[in-house]
C-alpha cells in the first residue's frame, strides 16, 4: 500500500515536473537564437506568412485529434438549432444539436427544466395537437424520437430515411412527414402503425417543411441546387405533397436560388415565403462589391392559379445579410422575421409592403428587383442583432414574442415583436467557456471576415461540407479554371488543399491568399485563423454513412466492388499497371495518396496542371464530381469522362461491375466508421496493399 502511494506520489510529482519543465524548456528553446530561427522558418512554411506568432500550442496542441487532447481542450456544447413554443406560452422545446437533447425551457423561470436524451444530431421538433408528445428528428441516427411530454422520456423511435431534418404533423395528427436531408426524399410515417408507409422523392438536400394554413398541402424546401452543369441556371426544388392523396402533386423549380432552408406562410395562406441565397457562381469572381458573389433574400410564391414566384433581396448596397435561415410570420400577418446565421441578425419584414410591391409591379420589373440592392428599403423595417449564429425561430401563440435559437451561443433570445427589441436571453446552461475550436466554428459561420459581410465560409460550405456549385475563380483569365467546391469535412489529414494542391496547409488555404481572392477583406486575425484551423481539423467529422454503410460492414455487392477497386489484373488476366489501379492513388484509410495526378480530365479551359487526388470519405454526398464538377454522378466519371483508362482501368468492366465499384465507393466513410470492419483495419494498417 505504502509502495503504491509512493508510486502515485511519484507520478503526481512527475506530472507537475513536466508541467513546469516542458514550458520552461520550450520557452528557453524559443529564445535560443538557432532554435528561434528554425521555429520561425517552420511556422513560416506552415502558415505561408512571415509574421504569424510563434505559438507552438496553436498547432501542437489544438490541432491534435487525440482523445486526451479532446478531453482536456474541448467541452460539450448544446448548440440549440430549432425550437417550438407551447400554446400556453409557458414552455419552449429546444433541439440541442450537439447535446443530442431536447431541452424543455420554462420561459417564466428562464431556465431549462428538463433534458431528454434523443438521437444523434437532432434537427427539428414538432408537438402533437394536444402537446402530449414531441417528435424530434435525429439527423445522424436516421430516426425520429417520440417523447412523452408528461414523463419527459423517449417512448418510441421511428425509422426514417437518411438524414431526417424538417418534420411536420398532418392536421389530424395521424401522419408525420419527415424530410430526409441526405437521402433527398420525404418519409410519410403512419403514427398508428408507427412505421414509414411511403417515401417521396424531394429536391436536392431538402430540409424545411411546412403545411399551408388549410393543412392539406405540405411544402418542402431544398438547399442544394439540382444537378445542373456549370453555365446553366441554378435552381432549387420546392416539393409539394398533398396529404389528402398522400403523394407529390407539384415540383416547382425556384430559379437562381440556393439554400432554401425553411418556409413560412402568411396566415391567410396567400403567400409562401422561403429564405434563400442567390449565388453568382456562373459569374467570374472578379469582385465582391455590389453583390458579385452572393446576394441574400427570400422567394415569395403566390398561392393562386398561375401564381408567380418572386424573389427579393434583404441586402443593401454596402451591407449584406448573409445566410438567411429561418422565417416566421406573426399571426396577424403583418410582420415577418428572417434569421441570418451569418451576420447574427434578424431582418424584420413588412409583409403588407411586400404584398403591395408585388401587386403593383410588372413581371419584368419584379425580375429586375430580384437583383436590386436598394429595393429592401421598401419592406425592411428593422435589423435586430442577436448572439452568435441565430438559426431556428418560433413565435408565441399570440405572436407577441419571438424566440430565436442562438446556435453557437447556447441560449435563446426573446424578442418583443411590437417594440422589435430583445427583451432578454435565456441561458440554456451550456459550458461558460469558449474553446478554441468553438471560436473557430463561430469564425467559419460568420460573414464578418468577408467584404461587407456578403458570405461566410458556411455559405459555400454549409454544414462544413460543400455547396455542390462550380465557380469561375478567374485567377488568371476569366472563364478559365473552373473549380468544384470541395468539402471541409475530415480534411485535416489529407493535405494538400485546392484542386491544384497549391496549399500545403489549411493555414495557407485560409490565410492571406484567401483574403485576397475570396473574401477581399482584411485577413483573419491570427487568433481567429488558429481557431478556424483547429475547428476544421479537430471538430468536423463526416456524418455516419448510414445510407450505404450503416453497420461498418460491406454488403455482398460492395465487397465485390471492393475487390474490383483493389484488383491488380483486368478481366482478361492481364496485369494492370500499378498507376492505373484505383487503390494506388486512393489507398485507405482516407483513400488518397495525397499526390497530384493526371486522370485525363484537363479541359481546354484549364491551365496546365495536375490535380490533387481527393479523399473519398463520404464521396456519395459530394456530387458533382471532378475538379470542374462536370460529372453529375459517380457513374459519369467513367461512363463519360474516362475513355482512355487514365482514371483507373475500368473500361473492361461490365455495367454490373461498374455498379458494384460505385456501390463500394458510396460505402466509403470516415476512418472512424469504416475502420470498424476488422478486415479493413488490418488493410489500413498494411498501407492498403
Amino acid at each position, binding site marked *: 500500500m505504502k509502495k503504491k502511494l509512493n508510486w502515485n506520489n511519484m507520478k503526481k510529482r512527475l506530472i507537475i515536473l513536466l508541467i513546469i519543465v516542458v514550458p520552461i524548456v520550450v520557452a528557453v528553446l524559443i529564445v535560443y537564437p538557432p532554435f528561434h530561427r528554425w521555429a520561425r522558418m517552420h511556422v513560416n512554411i506552415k502558415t505561408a506568412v512571415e509574421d504569424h506568432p510563434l505559438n507552438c500550442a496553436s498547432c501542437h496542441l489544438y490541432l491534435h485529434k487525440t482523445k486526451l487532447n479532446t478531453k482536456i481542450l474541448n467541452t460539450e456544447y448544446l448548440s440549440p438549432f430549432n425550437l417550438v413554443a407551447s400554446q400556453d406560452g409557458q414552455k419552449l422545446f429546444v433541439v440541442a444539436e450537439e447535446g443530442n437533447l431536447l431541452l424543455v425551457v420554462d420561459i417564466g423561470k428562464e431556465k431549462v427544466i428538463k433534458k431528454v436524451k434523443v438521437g444523434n444530431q437532432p434537427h427539428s421538433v414538432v408537438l402533437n395537437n394536444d402537446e402530449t408528445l414531441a417528435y424530434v428528428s435525429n439527423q445522424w441516427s436516421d430516426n425520429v424520437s417520440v417523447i412523452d411530454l408528461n414523463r419527459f422520456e423517449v417512448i418510441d423511435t421511428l425509422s426514417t430515411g437518411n438524414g431526417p431534418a424538417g418534420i411536420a404533423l398532418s392536421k389530424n395528427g395521424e401522419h408525420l412527414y419527415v424530410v430526409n436531408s441526405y437521402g433527398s426524399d420525404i418519409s410519410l410515417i403512419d403514427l398508428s402503425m408507427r412505421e414509414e408507409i411511403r417515401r417521396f422523392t424531394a429536391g436536392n438536400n431538402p430540409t424545411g417543411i411546412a403545411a399551408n394554413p388549410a393543412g392539406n398541402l405540405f411544402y418542402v424546401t431544398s438547399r442544394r441546387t439540382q444537378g445542373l452543369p456549370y453555365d446553366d*441556371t441554378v435552381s432549387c426544388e420546392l416539393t409539394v405533397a398533398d396529404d389528402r392523396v398522400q403523394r407529390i402533386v407539384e415540383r416547382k423549380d425556384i430559379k437562381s436560388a440556393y439554400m432554401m432552408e425553411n418556409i413560412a406562410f402568411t396566415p391567410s395562406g396567400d403567400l409562401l415565403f422561403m429564405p434563400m441565397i442567390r449565388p453568382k457562381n456562373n459569374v467570374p469572381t472578379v469582385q465582391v462589391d455590389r453583390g458579385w458573389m452572393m446576394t441574400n433574400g427570400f422567394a415569395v410564391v403566390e398561392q393562386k392559379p398561375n401564381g408567380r414566384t418572386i424573389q427579393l433581396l434583404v441586402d443593401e448596397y*454596402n451591407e449584406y445579410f448573409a445566410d438567411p435561415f429561418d422565417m416566421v410570420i406573426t399571426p396577424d400577418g403583418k410582420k415577418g422575421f428572417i434569421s441570418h446565421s451569418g451576420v447574427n441578425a434578424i431582418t424584420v419584414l413588412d409583409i403588407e409592403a411586400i404584398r403591395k410591391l408585388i401587386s403593383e409591379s410588372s413581371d419584368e420589373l419584379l425580375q429586375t428587383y430580384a437583383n*436590386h*440592392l436598394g429595393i429592401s428599403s421598401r419592406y425592411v423595417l428593422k435589423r435586430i442583432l442577436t448572439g452568435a449564429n441565430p438559426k431556428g425561430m418560433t413565435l408565441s401563440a399570440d405572436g407577441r414574442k419571438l424566440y430565436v435559437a442562438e446556435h453557437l451561443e447556447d441560449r435563446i433570445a426573446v424578442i418583443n415583436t411590437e417594440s422589435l427589441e430583445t427583451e432578454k436571453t435565456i441561458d440554456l446552461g451550456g459550458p461558460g467557456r469558449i474553446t478554441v475550436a468553438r471560436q473557430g466554428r463561430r469564425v467559419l459561420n460568420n460573414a464578418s471576415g468577408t467584404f461587407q459581410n456578403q458570405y461566410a465560409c458556411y455559405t459555400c460550405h454549409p454544414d462544413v461540407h460543400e455547396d455542390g456549385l462550380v465557380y469561375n475563380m478567374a485567377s488568371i483569365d476569366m472563364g478559365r*479554371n473552373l473549380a468544384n467546391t470541395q468539402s471541409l469535412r475530415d480534411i485535416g489529414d489529407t493535405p494538400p488543399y485546392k484542386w491544384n494542391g497549391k496549399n500545403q496547409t489549411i493555414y495557407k488555404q485560409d490565410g492571406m491568399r484567401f483574403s*485576397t481572392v475570396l473574401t477581399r477583406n*482584411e*485577413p483573419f486575425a491570427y487568433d481567429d485563423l488558429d481557431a478556424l484551423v483547429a475547428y476544421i481539423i479537430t471538430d468536423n467529422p463526416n456524418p455516419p454513412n448510414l445510407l450505404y454503410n450503416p453497420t461498418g460492414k460491406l454488403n455482398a455487392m460492395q465487397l465485390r466492388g471492393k475487390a474490383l477497386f483493389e484488383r491488380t489484373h483486368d478481366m482478361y488476366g492481364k496485369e494492370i499497371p500499378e498507376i492505373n489501379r484505383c487503390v494506388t492513388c486512393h489507398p485507405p484509410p482516407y483513400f488518397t495518396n495525397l499526390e497530384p495526378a493526371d486522370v485525363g480530365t484537363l479541359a481546354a479551359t484549364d491551365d496546365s496542371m495536375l490535380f490533387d487526388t481527393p479523399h473519398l470519405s463520404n464521396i456519395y454526398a459530394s456530387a458533382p464530381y471532378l475538379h470542374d464538377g462536370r460529372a453529375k454522378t459517380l457513374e459519369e466519371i467513367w461512363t463519360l469522362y474516362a475513355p482512355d483508362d487514365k482514371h483507373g482501368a475500368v473500361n473492361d468492366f461490365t455495367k454490373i461491375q461498374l455498379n458494384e465499384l460505385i456501390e463500394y465507393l458510396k460505402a466509403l466513410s470516415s476512418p472512424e466508421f469504416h475502420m470498424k470492419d476488422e478486415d479493413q483495419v488490418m488493410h489500413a494498417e498494411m498501407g492498403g496493399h
Partner: protein
Amino acid sequence: MKTRKFHLLYLIATACLMVVFTVSCSKSTEGRLIITQAPETDIVQGKGGSILPSYVHQAQIVMLNPRKPAAAKILTKDFYSACSPDVSWDGRHMLFAAQQKEHDTWQIWEMDLRNQKYHRITSFTDNCIDPVYLPIGRFVFSRDLTGDTLKADHSLFVGNLDGTGMMRITFQPHLDLAATVMKDGRILAITQQLFPAGSDQIYMTMRPDGTKCDLFYKGDKGSSLIGRGRDNQDGIIFFTETDSTGRKADVVSISYNRPLESRVNLTGSISGSFKAVFPSSAGKLFVCYNEAPGKPFALYEFDLSEKRLGKRLYGKDDVTVIDVIQVSEYERPKKLPTEVDMGVKTGQIMCQDINFTGLGLASEASLLRKVERFEVLGVDTSYGIVHVEEDGSFYLKVLADMPFRIQKLDENGKAIGEPCAWLYIRPNERRGCIGCHEDRNLAPDNVVPLAVKKDPVLIPTHIAVTDEKEVELE
C-alpha cells in the same frame, strides 16, 4: 529602518507619479478639437474652375478643449500655412498639409500630438494636400499633377508614413481629393471630371490600391461638395454640400449602407452656410458655420436629433474656421488586401451586357438600341473598336493605369449617346460591370457571359502582346 521606509515610500511615490504622468500624457489630447483657421477664405482655383478647399493662405491648425475653447493652442506656428488635419486611429498623431514658407510647395507632415514634434513625409516638387491615414503605417493624399502629360489635375497617391513606397492610385483626368477612409477600409474621395468637360463633384470610393473605383454618392445637378466626409460609429456619413446656386452650403448625411438613396439635408431650415462637419464621440456634430455671407465661419455644436445649432464654441472676428476634427481613439478601418501586381502590365474588365440599362434609364429610347460594337476612347486617341457578343457581353484586357471610356456605336459607326464615365484598371485588377449606364443598385444575373468563353480583347487593339509577368494560377 526609517531609511528603508523612506526608500519604500519614495519608490511608491515615484511609481505613482510615473503612472499619472504616463496616463496624463496618453490621454492629454483625448476629446480635444483640432480646427483649421485662416485669416481669409482665399481659395485657389484649379483647372476647369474646380474648387480646392486646401491651399489657404496663412492657415493655422489649432487645438482646443471644447470646454475651455478660449485656451486654444496653435500647433503649426512654425509653418506659413497648414491645413487638412487628420488624426490617427489611436488619437496620437496628426497628418496635415503645410507650407513652411510662403512660396514653398505644399507637402504632407505628421505631428505627434503628445509633444507636438513634427516631421515631413513627402518631398515632391509639386503640391501634396489632403492627407488621410490608412490602416497600419500608410496614408493617402492628393498630389497636383497639372504638369503631367495626362490631362489630370490632382490625383490620389498612397505611401508609407516614413515617406517610402509612394504610388499613384487614380488615373482618370479628374480632380481627386482624398476625403476619408471608411470603416470597410475603402477610400472615400471627392472627384470631379475635368476633361473633356467639367462636371459636378461626386464621391467616389476605391480600395487603397486604387482598384474597384466606383461612384459612392452624387448630389443634385450643380451641387458641390465642400470639405471632407466624416462617418460616425452608426454608419452615417456627414459632409457639407452647396446647392446649385453655390451660395449656401448645408450639412448633409447619407447612410453608408445606401449612399445613393439616403441623403438628408440636416440644416436646410437654418439660414447661413456651413463649411465643415465632424461627428462628435458624444453623438453631436461639430460644425463650421457662418450666419451670413462675408462673416467669418465659427465653430458650433449641432444637435442632431433637434436639427438645430447649439453652443458657439470658438470663433473670432478676424479668422474663419474652415475645418474641425476631434481627437479620439477610433475603430481602425479594415486593412484590405491588394490584388495589384506591378509586374503585370494589364488589368481585365468584363461587362455582362452593354445593352442593359437597368431600371432608371429603361425609358430612354436611344439607350434601348441594341449595340453590336463600341469604341474604347482614350484621352486624346481611340484605343480601338470592339465587337460585343450576342448576349451583349465584352471582355477586355486593358493596359493598366490608362484612362479610357466606352462609347457605344451604331451600325454606321456613329456614337450613340454619351460615353461612360472615365475608367482605369490597375495592374492585375479584375473588374466587372452589368451594363452601360447601369443602375448602381443592381447585382449581376448569375450567367456566364459569352465573352469570357473567349480570350480577352487587348486594349489598345493595335498592341498584339504585352511584355508582362505571367500571373500564377491561384
